[in-house]
């Protein structure tokens, strides 16, 4: 598809709000998430202008913004800020579901965190989660299974036995 003003504006009004929220849940920082998603959008735009084909803007931007929020130099910055924010929220808030689930999420290893957010917040199926994260569907399922177990424990929810053997 061609990434032009129309495509960008449509993306901004449909996918952008929830994608920023999803990346923020993964990296723990709203500004870093906005930065990553906008950067990914800009790169898609520039690639399209150079004549490169982008099959699905949603999928491309999701993958790239998660990569940007995750990888190397940006990861360092993002996680430092997330940690500071987490400590602040732990001091300033006394509980509540939202804080619980965010804290529990940030306690997960990165790949589990990403899989959980894509599956349960962005509501991708396991095949789409795999495509976004560059891993196969079986790995997505086992990653989600481990994440669910850890989150169940953390949130004090009983995890049914069969859930450990089910895919997302």
């Amino acid at each position, binding site marked *: 598809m061609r990434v032009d003003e129309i495509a960008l504006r449509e993306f901004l009004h449909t996918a952008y709000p929830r994608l920023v929220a999803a990346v923020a849940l993964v990296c723990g920082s709203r500004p870093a998430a906005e930065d990553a998603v906008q950067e990914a959008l800009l790169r898609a*735009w520039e690639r399209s202008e150079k004549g490169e084909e982008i099959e699905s803007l949603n999928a491309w931007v999701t993958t790239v913004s998660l990569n940007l929020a995750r990888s*190397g130099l940006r990861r360092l910055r993002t996680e430092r800020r997330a940690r500071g924010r987490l400590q602040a929220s732990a001091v300033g808030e006394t509980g509540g579901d939202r804080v*619980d689930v965010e804290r529990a999420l*940030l*306690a997960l*290893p990165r790949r589990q965190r990403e899989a959980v957010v894509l599956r*349960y917040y962005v509501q991708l199926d396991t095949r789409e989660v795999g495509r976004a994260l560059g891993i196969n569907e079986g790995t997505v399922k086992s990653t989600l299974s481990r994440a669910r177990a850890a989150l169940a424990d953390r949130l004090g*929810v009983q995890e049914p036995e069969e859930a450990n053997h089910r895919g997302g």
Partner: protein
Amino acid sequence: MAVDERLRRELEQAGRPADPSGVYEDLIRRRERRRLARRIKAGALAVAVAVGCIAGIVVLSRVFARAPVELAAGAGQGIVFGDGTGEETDLFVVQADGSGLRRLTHDGGSGAASWSPDGSKIVFARYEQTQTSDLFVMNPLGSEVTRLTETPGISEAEARWSPDGSKIAFEASGIGQDGVYVMDANGSNVVRLTAPEMDSSSPDWSPDGSQLVFDVTPTPTATEGPGGIEIWIMDADGGDPHPIVGDGASGNYEPRWSPGGDLIVFTRDRDVYIVRPDGTGLKNLTPQAGADVYDRDAAWSSDGERIVFASGRTHDDALSLFTMNPDGTDVQPVLDSAIGFCCPRPDWHGDAVGVPSPEPSPTEEPSPAVEGEDLGLGFPVCNVTSIEDEFAEPSVNSTAFVATRMGDTGGCPQADDAFNVIALDMVGDRKAETSFGPIECTIECRAFSSPDLDGDGTAELLVVQSGGSVLGMRLYDFESVDGDVAIVPVDVAPPGDPDALLEPGEQASFLLGGDAFELYTLQCLSLDEGVVGLAFTLAESLPHDAPDAEWHAHEVIVELRDDGLLHVVNARDFTEPVTDDPGGPSFRSDKTLCGANLGP
């Protein structure tokens, strides 16, 4: 199922969708800045640019563009660091006394560099189109770049040469690949040293090459949550990994082993700490800057006599480089400017002994005496710069200030995200009688020059409102109205000249600076009947860096008239050969503009 449902419900509550309004416009601006930054392929650090010497920039840039492969004496010494002031990060080298600043990379995605033991090479991480980083090696001039790794989907970074130069340890991150690795210095024989479940990074060698120190993020447990980050040591083959620092809460990062082998310096949360390799002797080296100030990214000089580190103590959240003794005393600035927050990660090759402690030059300090004063504005200010000239009436000096409103908690915000203001003190009591603001600034905001463009005997004010190797500045006039003086932005009269970025009805703005490929200059001219004109030239050398290159220039001559508007009186395109004349091209800027000094 219960977990699935609760996750969906609570994530729905926790996720806060973003507001897309204005984002498209932000993307446009971001793209334009990116384009400009890509065109500006050389130049020194933003705020360190000596703008009064445009010819110097040209000469300097040409040296970089045509860097000889043979290294000059001393080229393999200094502090290599990443500057992330703008949206992108590139690598620079500077000496510990702040001299010899030079840019090494121009791709906007390079960082986390370190020197080879003999100083002949630098290994670094570069982000390419794959969105993940790979490792490369270059010489200390930034040329002869060689790729070491090529792993789509996996980022390699934080590479460190072994003391004998034969191997490189590094961190990798990517699905299932997190960990510390080692390879031969040519990129072959990659071996993973840490267990797959161990999220480990930032390795550094002991001086005898027998061990590695690194940081580890433990897999969190359900009861403990995110349990901090620990410092570990293992043998160089990955054996006997064991923690030396970690209290389950603090984040301990990026350890660096001292050249003597007896100490390890690292970052703990927002301070630089030191510890012995056996975990004893833990000490905070930077308590003096306060708990809210970032001190991080420490590295040793080759003789172990000094430590370089990044700190936000002078530029709010933005970092700059400093050195200190290994006991935390005698903190000295390396740079006058901020280098962003992202990724300084300095690495120092060369001895500290014999390097004199730099004293900050009073002329380069932004009037520190008035930091925190309110200048009669009703709020305290910082980042104060000023120019004294005849702004309000001929033969009577007044002082024009450009300053940033202090943050509510007392810190000094970056110009990008702050209330910046122009103020005029006409009686010399450091209290402004009139002011104008807020003005938008990017990277920096400062009083720049005070030319008398309309020839009425009083000065106008040029204010730098965007920094970089090309400065963007805007023009203001001072108008007397019924005994009061107003600060008025000067707009462009129709039809303007959009090719020179002078849009009719918009405030007049000019660019100044550039490199060997693209250059923006300002000159004062005498027009007919003693009228003063200003020549603004935008030029590009084509083909880039070719022996037969020519400057393709667009020149516009403007005049500030009695109606308070800037009128375009002439515009032309011309070419002239690019020469090695150290004076630069015919349209180079002078060091003054209508008699007023340019910069700093």
